């Protein structure tokens, strides 16, 4: 695992972004796009989806953290992402606790089991 390393991106509400930026993940300068998006009430779903897809295309992002209630808005885009890098982690928000049944990764993992498998 040599080299400079990749960034951790975050798409979340103000508190989530503030917390992770305090944690030291933020990158912001005039030469590059920021690796975070603060989602407010006025932020459109199109903008969220566009930002998410731009993070997927960038080869310098290793992990994308996204509030689960925001992930629900762009669930189709998240379900289409099959690559292991960048990894997409759904996290809770203040008003919406984490629900494992909605997590794309866990749904994919648990979806393998059907009644046929146990015969």
């Amino acid at each position, binding site marked *: 695992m040599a080299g400079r390393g990749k*960034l951790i991106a975050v798409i979340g509400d103000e508190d989530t972004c*503030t917390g992770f*930026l305090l944690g030291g993940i933020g990158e912001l300068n005039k030469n590059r796009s920021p690796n975070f998006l603060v989602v407010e009430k006025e932020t459109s779903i199109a903008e969220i989806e566009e930002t998410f897809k731009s993070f997927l295309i960038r080869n310098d992002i290793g992990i994308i953290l996204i509030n689960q209630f925001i992930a629900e808005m762009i669930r189709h885009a998240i379900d289409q992402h099959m690559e292991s890098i960048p990894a997409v982690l759904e996290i809770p928000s203040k008003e919406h606790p984490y629900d494992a049944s909605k997590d794309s990764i866990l749904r994919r993992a648990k979806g393998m089991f059907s009644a046929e498998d146990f015969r």
Partner: protein
Amino acid sequence: MGLSEKEECVLLDQKLLVFMDQLELLEEKRERLNSLIEQGWFSMSKARYSMGNKQVSALQYGSEMEPLVRVHTRTLESGEAEFQTKRRTLKSPEERQVEDIGPKDKEGVRRRVKTQEVPEIDQSDNKHPWTETEPAPSSKPEPNPQQDPLKWFGILVPQTLKQAQASFKQVVELSAEVATLQSAVLTTRQQLQMKQKSSSQNPDLTD
């Protein structure tokens, strides 16, 4: 053929057990991650209560930021990805001060500001070192993108904000572990599905 059938079944069972263990570990790490995030928010709310609502918000973000933590990735032969964080240590204020002094010495030219009339009187009294050491305008402090993000919120921040930062730093480390486990779970799932398909296609194994 009997041995290979048994071997196939044993391998399938082992794979299934590994998958279950990975799922259980993933769930544990997730719970820890979520609880740390909530702890961070709670500390941030307490800091906001003491500092003021607008003092801990997006308005305080630095105009320039450099990431202090990066994640190193590695893809294994099986397609599984591993993630590991690496945090950069910030330079101490003394080190930064030393670097700042260096260029100023090289520039060397000390500017006297509005002192042309004064030297006639002060020739016998050159005890005003501060006129000679006025800093040149070019050495204004520039925002340091590598600074600790805590400094965006002021010089003296409450302990609760430092606690929030500590919680989120742990969350970042744990995120890499959760990402690694997620990838492992999905890879094991794929392998299990392939084995199940091959066993269902072989009628001997289903007997």
